[in-house]
C-alpha cells in the first residue's frame, strides 16, 4: 500500500511540476536516474538532536553496509568487468592486454546457439510458471486465512532440502525406465517410453520445478492485494472468469507477475546443475558456458565477458520491470 501511495504522490507532484512549468515558463525537467530506487518522496528520518561531534551510533549503522557493499558486491563485480577485457595466456593466467577480443568470441556461432537455447528454456520456464502460479494464487486467495498461510509455508518447505538433491529426484522420475514411464506404460496410456530427460524438456521441467515458488510468492502477494470489491463489481457486471482475469487481475498484478518472471528467468539461464543433470551434455545453457570457462578451460577473461553479457541482460530486464511499475524492494520477498 505504501508503494501505491508513493506512486500516487509521485504522479501528483509530477502533474504539479508540469503545470507550474507550463504556467511560469520555467523548466524543471530533471533527468531520470538509472536504476531509480524507490521512496523518492520518503522523508529521511534524521535524528532531531544536532549531532555536533562524533556520533557513534551513526558509525555503527553505516559502516557495516558501506564495508559490506564495497567489499562483497562492488569489488567482485568491478573485477569481473576488468577481467573481461584481459587476455587469457593459455596457462590459466592472464596477460594485461586490454582488448575486446573476448567480446568478439562471445558472438561465436556455437556460443550464440547456446544463448538462444538458454533464452528459449528461460522463457518457456517463466511462461509455464506463470501459467501455474496465477490460477494457484487466484484460487488460493478465496480460502480462509489459516489455510492460505499454511499452504504458502508448505510451498517453501521443499527449499530446506537442497536444490541439487531435489533435481536428482527427478532423474528417478524422468528416466526412460523411471517411475513416470513405467507407470504410464503399465497403465497402457503410452506405447513406448517418453523421452523426458537429456533434452530441453527435461531441463525445462527441472527449472520450472525448482523456480516455481519464486513465481508463486510474488504473484500471490500481488493477487491478494487486489481489492475484492473490484472483482465483485466485475462479476456483477457479468464478466466471466477469463474476462475477470484479463481485465482486472492482469493489469493490477502486472508488477508482481514481472517480479516473479525476473526471479524465474534470471536463474533459469544460470542454473547449470539442472541442465547438467537433466539435460546431459545436450542442453547447455549460458550458465554451463561460464562454468566451463572458469573451471575447465581456465579462460577466466572469456568467462568474465560472458558474465558481463549476462549482467547486461539482467539489468535490462530490471529496467523494464521498473518501467512497468515494479518496485525494487519487492524483489526477493
Amino acid at each position, binding site marked *: 500500500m505504501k508503494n501505491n501511495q508513493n506512486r500516487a504522490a509521485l504522479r501528483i507532484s509530477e502533474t504539479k511540476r508540469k503545470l507550474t512549468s507550463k504556467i511560469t515558463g520555467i523548466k524543471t525537467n530533471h533527468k531520470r536516474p538509472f536504476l531509480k530506487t524507490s521512496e523518492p518522496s520518503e522523508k529521511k528520518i534524521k535524528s*532531531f538532536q544536532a549531532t555536533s561531534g562524533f556520533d557513534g551510533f551513526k558509525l555503527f549503522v553505516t559502516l557495516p553496509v558501506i564495508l559490506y557493499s*564495497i567489499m562483497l558486491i562492488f569489488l*567482485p563485480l568491478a573485477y569481473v568487468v576488468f577481467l573481461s577485457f584481459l587476455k587469457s595466456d593459455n596457462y590459466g593466467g592472464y596477460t594485461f592486454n586490454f582488448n575486446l577480443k573476448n567480446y568478439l568470441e562471445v558472438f561465436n556461432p556455437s556460443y550464440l546457439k547456446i544463448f538462444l537455447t538458454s533464452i528459449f528454456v528461460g522463457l518457456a520456464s517463466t511462461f509455464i510458471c506463470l501459467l501455474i502460479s496465477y490460477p494457484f494464487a487466484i484460487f488460493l486467495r478465496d480460502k480462509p486465512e489459516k489455510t492460505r498461510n499454511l499452504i504458502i509455508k508448505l510451498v517453501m518447505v521443499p527449499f530446506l*532440502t537442497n536444490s541439487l538433491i531435489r533435481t536428482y529426484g527427478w532423474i528417478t522420475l524422468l528416466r526412460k525406465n523411471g517411475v513416470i514411464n513405467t507407470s504410464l506404460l503399465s497403465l497402457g496410456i503410452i506405447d513406448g517410453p517418453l523421452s523426458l530427460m537429456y533434452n530441453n524438456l527435461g531441463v525445462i521441467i527441472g527449472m520450472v*520445478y525448482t523456480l516455481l515458488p519464486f513465481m508463486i510468492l510474488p504473484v500471490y502477494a500481488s493477487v491478494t492485494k487486489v481489492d475484492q470489491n473490484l472483482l465483485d463489481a466485475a462479476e456483477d457486471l457479468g464478466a466471466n472468469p477469463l474476462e475477470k482475469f484479463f481485465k482486472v487481475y492482469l493489469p493490477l498484478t502486472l508488477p508482481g507477475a514481472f517480479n516473479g518472471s525476473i526471479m524465474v528467468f534470471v536463474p533459469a539461464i544460470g542454473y547449470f546443475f539442472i541442465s547438467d543433470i537433466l539435460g546431459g551434455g545436450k542442453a547447455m545453457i549460458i550458465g554451463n558456458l561460464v562454468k566451463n570457462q572458469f573451471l575447465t578451460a581456465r579462460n577466466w577473461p572469456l568467462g*568474465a565477458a560472458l558474465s558481463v553479457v549476462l549482467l547486461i541482460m*539482467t539489468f535490462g530486464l530490471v529496467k523494464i520491470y521498473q518501467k512497468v511499475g515494479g518496485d525494487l524492494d519487492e524483489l*526477493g520477498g
Partner: protein
Amino acid sequence: MPNLVLSVYEPLRNRVVTRRPSQTRKKVYLKNIFITLVMLFLFLPILILVIFSFNTSKLNVVFTGFTFEWYLKLFENKNLLEAFRNTILIAVLSTAISTIIGTISAVGLRKYNFFGEKFIGKLIYIPIVIPEIVLGIALLSIFTLFKLKLGFWTVLLAHISFSVPFVITNVRSTLYSISPSIEEAAEDLGASKFETFWRVTLPLIKPGVISGAILAFTLSMDDVVISYFTAGPGTNTLPLYIYSNIKTGITPDVNALTTIMLVLTIIILVASAKISSRLREKRELS
C-alpha cells in the same frame, strides 16, 4: 413493526444461500483439486526420495525391497555426515551474521544520509537480481586475487554476501511501517541512540528481522551454484558431495538424510505455528 419484519426475514435467511458465480460448490471443488495438484507437483521428487530411502538396492534406480538399513548406514558415511555438518554450520552462521549486518544496515540506510549512500542503496539490490553464477565467479575471482584459501570460510563469506540484501529488504519493509515519532519520543525521554535502537526499534521490527533470517537460512541451505565456485578442493558441503557422486550413483543413505531433514523441517514448522498461536491467545486473553 420491526419484529414482524424480522420474524418473516429470519427463517428465509437460513434457507437461501446465495453464492457468487465464482464460489459455486463445484467451482470450489475444482479449485481445491488444482491447488492440491500443484502441491503434489512440488513434493513429488521429494516423495520419491523418501520412498527410495527405504530401498534395498544400492542404486536409486528401481525399488527392489523395503529396508531401514540406510538410516543406520547413514551414520557410517563420514563424508556425507561431514558435508551435512558443514552445510548446516554455514547456514546457521551465515544466517546469524547476515541478519545482524542486514538489520543494522537497513536501520542505517533509513536513518542517516552518508557519503555514497545513493550508490550503496543501488548496490544492495544487485545480489538479489543477478544470476547466482555471476556472483559466484565474481567472488571466486576476488578471493583468488586476495590469495584467500578457498574453503569453509570463503563459502561462508559468499553465503553472507548473497543473504544480506534479502535481510535488508525484509527489514526495510517493516521499518517503513514504524513512525519515527516513537524513536524521537524515546530519545526525548533520555535514551541514547543505542538504547533506542536496542529497546524500541528492534522489538518493533522483529517480524521483518525474523522473516529475513528465515529467508537467509533457506537460501543458504538451498544454495548450489555459489557453493560450487567458492568451495576449495578439500571442503565438503552437501551439494558438492551429491554433485561429485552423481556419476557413480547416489546411495540411499543420502535419501535417508533428506528424509530426516524434511521431517525435522515439518516438526519445526508445526511447532512454531503452535507456539505463535498460543502466544497470540495469551495476548488476546490478557
